[in-house]
């Protein structure tokens, strides 16, 4: 069995629900998006190995210098709720200390959740890292040198 070494631990975030005592642990990642003007904002994204491409809420079109969310390349995506249109763009993200230029999808059907503005998906981004996932420990392990 090969031995895998990681250099970073990302703790899941706990959300207390009602009734008290019920909690949900989410693998959330703080990702920096470099905007069209060069400024940087942090976006919480849900770590999602099931997402082919990193996906953001449609409202973020404005910080990419776009006039509307649906002016990029149209792509059909399969979601939990059926097929949905998304639009593809290229952006620069800072993820786990690395600067990565990668495709993203803007999607106007992501459910509203205050703890994540989109999904951190595989295309290009995951190529830069190795991941280990430990649900019971509520920890995601990351190496930038896979």
């Amino acid at each position, binding site marked *: 069995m090969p031995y895998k070494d990681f250099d970073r631990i990302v703790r899941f975030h706990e959300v207390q629900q009602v009734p008290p005592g019920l909690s949900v642990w989410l693998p959330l990642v703080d990702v920096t998006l470099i905007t069209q003007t060069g400024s940087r904002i942090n976006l919480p994204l849900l770590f999602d190995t099931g997402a082919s491409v990193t996906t953001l809420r449609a409202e973020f079109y404005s910080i990419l210098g776009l006039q509307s969310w649906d002016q990029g390349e149209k792509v059909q995506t399969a979601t939990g709720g059926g097929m949905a249109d998304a639009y593809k763009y290229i952006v620069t993200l800072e993820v786990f200390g690395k600067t990565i230029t990668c495709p993203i*999808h803007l999607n106007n059907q992501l459910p*509203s959740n205050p*703890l994540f503005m989109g999904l951190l998906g595989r295309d290009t981004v995951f190529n830069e890292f190795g991941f280990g996932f430990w649900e019971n420990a509520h920890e995601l392990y990351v190496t930038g040198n896979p």
Partner: protein
Amino acid sequence: MKYSIRSLQDIGEVKANLKAMLTSAKSPEQTLEMLDRIGLEPFVTEEGDLLVRIWSVAAEDFVSREQAAIIRAKKATSEKSDDLDWLSKNLTAIRGQYAGEWIAIYEGKVIDHAPALPELLARIFEFDRPLITFIPAEPVTWTFTYAL
């Protein structure tokens, strides 16, 4: 925005800009706030002097890009308070106060809020890497299946 200093001449320019900033500020508190916002860490001595920390390049190609990524990731975690952690711990109160709005969080506090994202971003441009999120007014579902 953070200053990037590469030479003594650059440092001279930064000092000139600082002097102009000190003149334009209405109070010492405002000066300190402005310095914080542009990433120059201010420090007031016991004697009442104002010091700022200015970074300069000490050694180019100090470590490999791979090592730099590891170092930067660890440093970012330890230096900047975890705004996402703060948000998740204070979510109930934040949802009560900002339902239906976009908010910006910086170093463990909500620095601004607006009903539209462009409006919010236009007001917080001087902050480096604020956490941006939308607080929905409707009930949130915490169990989901995505896979986009």
